[in-house]
């Protein structure tokens, strides 16, 4: 009755994996101790650390899949495996750039709703050029684009709007007007990938400003309300449209 436990990880790359699947790694990753010995004796170069990404957990026999999705692999830098899954619920991760909505001002700290299980906190000093005398002008209901400084399962997430050198690099309060809407996390990752055709094609249609938050929130602002709404509808629909359908939809609008 026992089903075969475990398939080789390399064989499953690009295929759908379900929770409970066990992925076996090639032996070289498991023999850390042997790797040390090889290094000293100038033998084969050690393989480096294998990164176990979202959707996978390390267990005694190999990698246990915890989310359903497509298995991906990146051979660079010691190799990384992760599961590409479609989700709508965001879980804060350190270093992610997200759009938050200010819900409360509690003394020196703003509380932001980022779509996770807890509101994130943002100190008023975490803006570029902010001092105790020069406070940023943030009201309840404003949109903030920032990144997570602290985000783990045990602590309340903290955000900042400056990077490690003190520059804002595009983060901070998002201006007036524009339209904020929510999409699935998979679409955001697709839009943020280096050669995304959707954004290139849309920019040929109308000029617009776009802010993408890893928590599934997108903020769009174009010259008129109608153009903004057209862009919003195309972005929402592009999750399910194929490339041809998208080109047809855009051709209809650019003809006008």
């Amino acid at each position, binding site marked *: 009755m026992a089903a075969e436990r475990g398939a080789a990880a390399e064989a499953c790359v690009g295929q759908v994996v*379900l929770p409970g699947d066990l992925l076996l790694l090639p032996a070289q990753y498991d023999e850390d101790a042997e790797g040390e010995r090889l290094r000293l004796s100038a033998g084969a170069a050690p393989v480096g650390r294998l990164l176990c990404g979202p*959707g996978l957990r390390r267990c005694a026999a190999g990698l246990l899949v*915890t989310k359903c999705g497509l298995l991906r692999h990146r051979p660079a830098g010691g190799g990384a495996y992760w599961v590409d899954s479609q989700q709508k*619920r965001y879980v804060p991760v350190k270093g992610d750039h997200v759009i938050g909505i200010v819900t409360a001002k509690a003394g020196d700290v703003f509380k932001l709703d980022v779509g996770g299980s*807890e509101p994130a906190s943002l100190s008023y000093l975490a803006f570029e050029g902010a001092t105790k005398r020069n406070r940023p002008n943030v009201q309840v209901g404003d949109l903030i684009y920032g990144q997570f400084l602290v985000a783990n399962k045990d602590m309340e997430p903290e955000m900042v709007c400056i990077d490690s050198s003190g520059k804002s690099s595009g983060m901070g309060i998002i201006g007036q007007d524009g339209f904020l809407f929510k999409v699935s996390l998979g679409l955001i990752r697709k839009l943020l990938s280096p050669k995304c055709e959707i954004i290139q094609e849309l920019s040929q249609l109308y000029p617009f400003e776009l802010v993408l938050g890893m928590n599934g929130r997108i903020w769009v602002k174009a010259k008129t309300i109608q153009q903004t709404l057209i862009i919003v509808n195309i972005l929402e629909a592009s999750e399910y449209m194929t490339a041809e359908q998208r080109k047809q939809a855009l051709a209809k609008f650019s003809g006008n």
Partner: protein
Amino acid sequence: DLPALPVPGDTSVLAGVYGPAEAKLSKELPDRAALEVLLRPKVGLPGVLERSREQLLRQTCEAVVLGVLHPRTAITLVLQVLSDAGSLLSCCLNAACIGLLDAGLPLSSLFCGVTCALDPDGTIILDPTTRQEQEARAVLSFAIDSSERKVLMASTKGSCSIEEMQQCLAAAQRAADTIFQFYRDSVRRRYSKS
């Protein structure tokens, strides 16, 4: 945060999973997620039978969901019965599993529900209809997990001998293979579109 809808035969249950979301202070657990299951019958208010089924579902889901990854949060699973033609508990289990899978919650394995009915003459009927359930001597429901076909939950109504229970369990484990293959095919279809 997504509803899922599996339909074995004519029994259908709609499942919606919400979470991990903020938990009320009275309900939050410091080291794991608090899982809550709500089962709504097709007509009427939820009664004692729904409450006991909610507990069975909750304990099965807690065994599988990796709650330690989301402490102090609440995960809510809402099941709405759309039609009931027999084998309701196993249909709810299947709907719950697909709902959790769809929502992207971390799971250590999948599970499925199988119901067996024992005829007065000893024949085992899998996934019985309401009529077969009423005429049967005993109705057994099992929740089987996907990694080693172990039993997560067993619920019995009626009387049967230990050998008969073992036989029903073996039949359920075999039937579970078909259900897990169905899960795999559905997920494959979903991801083939993107």
